[in-house]
């Protein structure tokens, strides 16, 4: 591992000043960065540890409604926070579907959103990877496509975004509070990701918080995150879906949908939401929404199975969302193909 200088500022201004130096990386939970440094994929000269900035680790209500989730709130704390469980339990469901307890105890909100792809080409410094070294090529192009996107892949990069948490956050129109030496700004979470999924933030900028709009709580009673993976725990999504509905008078008043594991970015299919909005929920409607969401999907190598899988996972997530958010997110994710049981209503 390349040697680095380690700084642990106690104030945001100090942190931003320290990060103005080149080759600086923010250190939050370190669960992704330290691994990348060990592999030689990340080689920062300076680490600025965010552990001393206490206000980054809190969840607070916003004056205009909604929530501010600090960038350094640990995944484990997010998943058990009473306000999250009341207003956005789908975030807890997504977080608990990811990684393992040891990782969730350290991994943070913003670190999760900014994590690097798990594409084998990206993780091998000896392999060609346009994302890691622009113009070097793409080793994954010659592979079986298992790690590859079926939506939104670019010529340069076909890796999928690995975050679970980002999927419901994008669906719920989350924004980011970003701080730099020139001040602060608020951006839509969707714009954090470039076409290849890499962060669009300039070096030295820091995500302070994820802002969840007040409207998000209106979906809390009918919102589910469903993740399909090769084993029940500690695995990234083959495909996943966030489905959030607002139901009134037997109709879907509003729908929010996003897909994970299928694209370089958390994928928000507006076409599917348009199919759902205002309609009476039926199996046929959900299938039509899933068809719309995947209409533009194209296989790479042997990953065509992901397209049908994503359709079915989205239909299933919508079906579960319609039944109602369970009162408690279970310790172990149930099989997505098991009977859904009573479906106790949330709140």
């Amino acid at each position, binding site marked *: *591992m*390349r*040697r*680095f*200088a*380690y700084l*642990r500022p106690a104030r945001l201004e100090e942190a931003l000043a320290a990060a103005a130096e080149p080759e600086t990386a923010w*250190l939050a939970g*370190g*669960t992704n960065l*330290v*691994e990348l*440094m*060990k*592999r030689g994929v990340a080689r920062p000269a300076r*680490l600025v*540890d965010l*552990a001393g900035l206490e206000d980054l680790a809190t969840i607070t209500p916003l004056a205009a409604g909604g929530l501010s989730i600090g960038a350094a709130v640990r995944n484990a704390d997010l998943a058990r926070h009473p306000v999250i469980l009341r207003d956005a339990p789908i975030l807890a469901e997504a977080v608990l579907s990811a*990684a*393992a*307890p*040891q*990782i969730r*105890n*350290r991994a943070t909100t913003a670190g999760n959103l900014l994590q690097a792809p798990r594409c084998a080409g990206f993780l091998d410094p000896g392999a060609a990877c346009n994302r890691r070294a622009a113009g070097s090529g793409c080793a994954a192009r010659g592979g079986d496509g298992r790690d590859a996107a079926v939506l939104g892949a670019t010529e340069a990069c076909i890796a999928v975004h690995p975050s679970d948490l980002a999927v419901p956050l994008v669906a719920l129109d989350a924004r980011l509070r970003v701080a730099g030496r020139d001040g602060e700004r608020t951006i839509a979470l969707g714009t954090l990701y470039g076409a290849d999924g890499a962060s669009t933030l300039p070096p030295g900028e820091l995500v302070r918080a994820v802002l969840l709009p007040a409207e998000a709580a209106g979906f809390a009673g009918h919102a589910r995150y469903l993740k399909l993976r090769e084993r029940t*725990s*500690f695995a990234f999504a083959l495909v996943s879906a966030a489905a959030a509905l607002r139901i009134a008078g037997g109709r879907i008043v509003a729908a929010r949908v996003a897909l994970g594991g299928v694209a370089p970015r958390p994928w928000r299919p507006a076409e599917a939401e348009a199919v759902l909005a205002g309609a009476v929920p039926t199996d046929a409607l959900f299938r039509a929404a899933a068809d719309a969401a995947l209409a533009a999907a194209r296989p790479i190598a042997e990953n065509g199975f992901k397209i049908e899988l994503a359709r079915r996972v989205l239909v299933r997530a919508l079906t579960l969302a319609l039944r109602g958010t369970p009162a408690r997110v*279970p*310790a*172990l994710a149930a099989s997505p193909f098991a009977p859904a049981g009573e479906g106790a209503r949330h709140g």
Partner: protein
Amino acid sequence: MAKVPVQFTLNGSEKAEFVESGATLLDVLRDKIGDTSPKAGCRQGTCGSCSVIVDGELRLSCLTLAETCEGASIVTTAGLAEGGVLHPLQRAFMDAFATQCGFCTPGMIMAAKALLDRNPDPSRDEVVEAIAGNICRCTGYEPIIEAVLSAARSNSISAA
């Protein structure tokens, strides 16, 4: 770049070490202090064999930079026995034949301790979830789950 001084508490005793830039807590525990109870398995955060408890929280020592542990309180499996008497979890793992090669055992015991410290009466699913980040390559999960449930039962009996 000079070595960096780090002070922390390990199983109740004060430690002060000079660490290299980039050294992990796992490196320092095993190679500098000589506590080899945390195991170096994958070194990439995917096997759980290096699990330790830092400030009451289950962590992967292979992904924890030693420099970030200044002032921390660290517990490893080597620190669980008191006065030569094994911790109830260690006893339960022996009684349930929950070790085969033994490599995953200290990480499993740390994960189980972290669970029982905050949830003394876990369900079977909660035990499974708590050790989801710990891999056993001898396929011994069933006796491990039984051992953790048995330790929880014996704790609640002795507490009653």
